[in-house]
């Protein structure tokens, strides 16, 4: 039997270990530059007297339309959020569309409408764009890429190296909403369900936080790979460990039930309207207060804290029954299990 050639797996785009490997071993060596090498959510570019944050993301979600949003809304909010968690005020987006031959124009119209509304709500302009088409079957309907620019807020310094023992970890609301909505719609298992994506732009809330509170050390939006991936990235990058309280992690019962049914772990499920923030201990209460006054932060809560690393940087969970276990970096593709 001839040996199978190596192929890109879906998991290479999953936001977990395999993607990191692909980036570090195949892409970075070819593109060699310091700014790219930092692998931040946004790149800081010093341009005259303003610091501009610059980011890009591609959107390939299936199904294209889901309860709580669609690929268009996602394409705007996702990029806005990368700029937001980098401590900038989003200003402008580019928009590139790759459309499959045969895609219905009324669907394209609906997506463009969502993009327009999301841009307006998040106060960003789509300042440049591009459209391509590909053969039928080559693009799952439509793929979108957005690149975004934001103006860095003054006196904001975020970095994994700023994280210290004792810092608190907070999240602005429930986890797993987006991931479980997509999966249950895609698997065709949920006939009617109030499960909805949390897709939303966070810039208004994050700007408010950065403008009012000193002591925010780091922020990231836990998209693919979920909270588990983000926490693991934090411990790896800061060379600390974290301890999380399971009972503090907010999860909607309906989302948990969907995860239980499929054998998924909500910690690994994607979020599109959430951020994880690492803040100085005396800044935590003020951050919570500001979050809870905003519609996107009503369920904000401290879920854990940063502790000293022992032999390796670990994410440790104190479970509901008082036990302990480790949260590992997800593989990159959750599969529904039965057995």
């Amino acid at each position: 039997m001839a040996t199978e050639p190596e192929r890109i797996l879906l998991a290479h785009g999953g936001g977990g270990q395999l993607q990191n490997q692909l980036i570090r071993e195949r892409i970075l060596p070819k593109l060699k530059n310091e700014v790219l090498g930092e692998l931040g959510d946004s790149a800081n570019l010093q341009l005259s007297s303003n610091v501009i944050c610059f980011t890009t993301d591609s959107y390939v979600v299936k199904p294209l339309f889901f309860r709580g949003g669609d690929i268009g809304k996602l394409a705007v909010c996702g990029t806005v959020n990368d700029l937001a968690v980098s401590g900038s005020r989003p200003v402008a987006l580019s928009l590139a569309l790759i459309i499959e031959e045969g895609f219905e124009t009324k669907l394209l119209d609906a997506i463009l409408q969502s993009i327009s509304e999301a841009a307006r709500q998040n106060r960003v302009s789509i300042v440049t764009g591009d459209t391509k088409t590909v053969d039928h079957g080559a693009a799952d309907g439509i793929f979108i890429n957005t690149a975004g620019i934001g103006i860095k807020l003054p006196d904001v310094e975020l970095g994994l190296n700023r994280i210290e023992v004792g810092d608190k970890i907070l999240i602005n609301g429930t986890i797993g909403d987006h991931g479980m909505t997509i999966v249950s719609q895609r698997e065709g298992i949920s006939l009617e369900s109030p499960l909805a994506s949390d897709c939303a732009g966070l810039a208004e809330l994050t700007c408010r936080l950065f403008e009012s509170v000193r002591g925010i050390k780091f922020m990231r939006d836990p998209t693919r790979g979920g909270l588990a991936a983000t926490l693991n990235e934090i411990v790896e990058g800061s060379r600390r460990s974290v301890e999380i309280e399971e009972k503090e992690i907010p999860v909607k019962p309906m989302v948990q039930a969907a995860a239980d049914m499929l054998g998924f772990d909500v910690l690994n499920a994607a979020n599109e309207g959430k951020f994880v923030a690492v803040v100085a201990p005396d800044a935590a209460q003020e951050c919570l207060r500001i979050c809870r006054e905003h519609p996107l932060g009503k369920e904000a809560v401290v879920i854990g804290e940063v502790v000293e690393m022992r032999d390796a940087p670990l994410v440790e969970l104190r479970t509901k029954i008082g036990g302990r276990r480790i949260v590992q970096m997800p593989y990159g593709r959750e599969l529904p299990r039965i057995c």
Partner: protein
Amino acid sequence: MCLAVPARIIELEGDRAVVDAMGNRWKAKTTLLPDAKLGDVVLVHAGFAISTVDEEEAKKTWELFAEIENMGSEKFDG
């Protein structure tokens, strides 16, 4: 080995059912539970109801079940 969750039968025609777990609705078959009735809470595995759930017993040790009970008559929000 066996992921199964409790859910309430909210539609039933022959052995084809729709079950509700915390607001999520799924198709399931009751072929293995010929005596299942509308309104029963059943254990669902791989698309099949494999047992009815004794609600009194379940309330004693099953946290997930207690949550389903609470959700029972709540309207969906959002």
